[in-house]
């Protein structure tokens, strides 16, 4: 299975290094044509306003909506999380709306409030290290959204069906847990290209070899109970 990493701006290379470590097949995505060739997408950290320019101006938004309609899995970190949310505040801005979340930008404060923290998660027994950089807050979640980790009482890692959202940067740590979880989630969705199903399960094995049994309590559902209208 080929994972696309949106590479118009931001820390896309850090995500690429994670996928390399996990032996996953990936491609950097800068054009709609490149987006059409992948079966799951990572939207990295960076500046959401900059990324939004490229989504709006160069046909990438339409390409990502096609992927979503075909049932592709998405994983957004920080700016990527903002792009995936249903509603964005402070300031209000457009978003893809694939995840039933309301998110507030730069909610911890400016760079001086950026910090490395750690908190428990459903993904593994040990606490997860979390790098927050000018991070947003998840203000509200829809009824179909599962909280996988909280920090300071707030959801920071959540899943809306096949859409995974982190307000921190797992790609800036040495821990591959969150990316393994995403690969497993991407592999378990109904394959939108029948001939790809064999390859999809290969990637699934990569994830499960690395201790996926810990994820047993949170198997990705194949359909999302999202109440929001598809745009």
């Amino acid at each position, binding site marked *: 299975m080929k994972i696309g990493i949106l*590479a*118009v*701006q*931001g*820390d*896309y*290379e*850090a995500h690429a290094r994670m996928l390399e470590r996990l032996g996953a097949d990936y491609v950097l995505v*800068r*054009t709609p044509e490149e987006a059409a060739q992948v079966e799951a997408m990572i939207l990295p*950290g*960076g*500046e959401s*306003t*900059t990324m939004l*320019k*490229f989504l709006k101006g160069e046909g990438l938004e339409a390409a990502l909506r096609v992927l979503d309609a075909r049932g592709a899995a998405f994983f957004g970190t*920080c*700016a990527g999380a903002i792009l995936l949310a249903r509603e964005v505040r*402070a*300031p209000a801005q457009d978003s893809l709306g694939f995840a039933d979340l309301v998110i507030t*930008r*730069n909610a911890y*404060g*400016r*760079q*001086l409030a*950026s*910090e*490395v923290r750690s908190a428990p998660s459903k993904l593994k027994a040990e606490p997860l290290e979390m*790098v*927050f*950089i*000018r991070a947003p807050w998840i203000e509200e979640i829809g009824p179909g959204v599962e909280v996988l980790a909280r920090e300071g009482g707030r959801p920071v890692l959540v899943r809306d069906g096949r859409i995974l959202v982190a307000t921190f*940067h797992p790609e*800036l740590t040495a821990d591959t847990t969150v990316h393994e979880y995403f690969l497993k989630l991407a592999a378990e969705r109904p394959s939108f290209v029948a001939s790809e199903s064999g390859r999809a399960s290969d990637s699934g094995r990569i994830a499960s070899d690395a201790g996926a049994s810990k994820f047993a309590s949170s198997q990705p559902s194949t359909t999302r109970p999202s109440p929001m209208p598809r745009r």
Partner: protein
Amino acid sequence: MDSSNGNANNQWRVKVGLAEMLKGGVIMDVTTAEQARIAEQAGACAVMALERVPADIRKEGGVARMASPRIIREIMNTVSIPVMAKARIGHFAEAQVLEALEVDFIDESEVLTPADEENHIWKHDFKVPFVCGARNLGEALRRIAEGAAMIRTKGEAGSGNIVEAVRHMRAITSEMRRLTTLRGDELVHAAKELAAPLELVREVAQRGKLPVPNFSAGGIATPADAALVRQLGAEAVFVGSGIFKSSDPDKRARAIVKAATHYEDAKAVLEASEELGEAMRGLDVRQLDPKELLQTRGW
């Protein structure tokens, strides 16, 4: 760095982490809140707040200092992207003021008149990250040793001429390539020649790249300039005078943002280059008196 101390190490990681977030983007010099708004809407990943762009500093002369806090605050209140500001080389008190103002990044910059001709700011003392200019690998590693979380080429600011940024980027990347070919026991001599700490020299020899993001600045005026330095190894670009000294800043800002991302796609850079209006006028660096060069400030 500072791995003996967990807190210092985590502080270092979030500094470099913000630099990572700016990769692939364009950081634009702005002097007013209105310019900052134009830059953000054009897709800038950050803005540099200053009182005069380098081309005007060059023209008007006098002592160039940190911008007035009022201007910087107005800009911080106008945009949601990170706001950087410049402090004079060695002027740690200006840097303390900028940190108190809560800017997101400080540029210890040769564009301003240096406050200390021997010592740069000891940047590990600050929680806010710093970017510093460099003309070669030794200079880059000395700044990183002092705590810079991002390096940019110095180029020749305010010249609208890419030649110096190209020279500096090629110097840094070719020196890094050479280090990767040396035996371990040859790195001590290399460190002596570079006048840089051995520990950082070894790290570069092992990874083939700087331990912090490596950006380009100084003379970028066109989309093709941005594509050029990106292909030479710059992970993002700073545009100083190039945007707001051109005939149509909004259009030029958008074009350079596009070219910085699609730097390997000549058709996209062509599209970005069409119907742009006039670029800033620019200076032949060879015709400048050596005393007028900004890049020789700092060491």
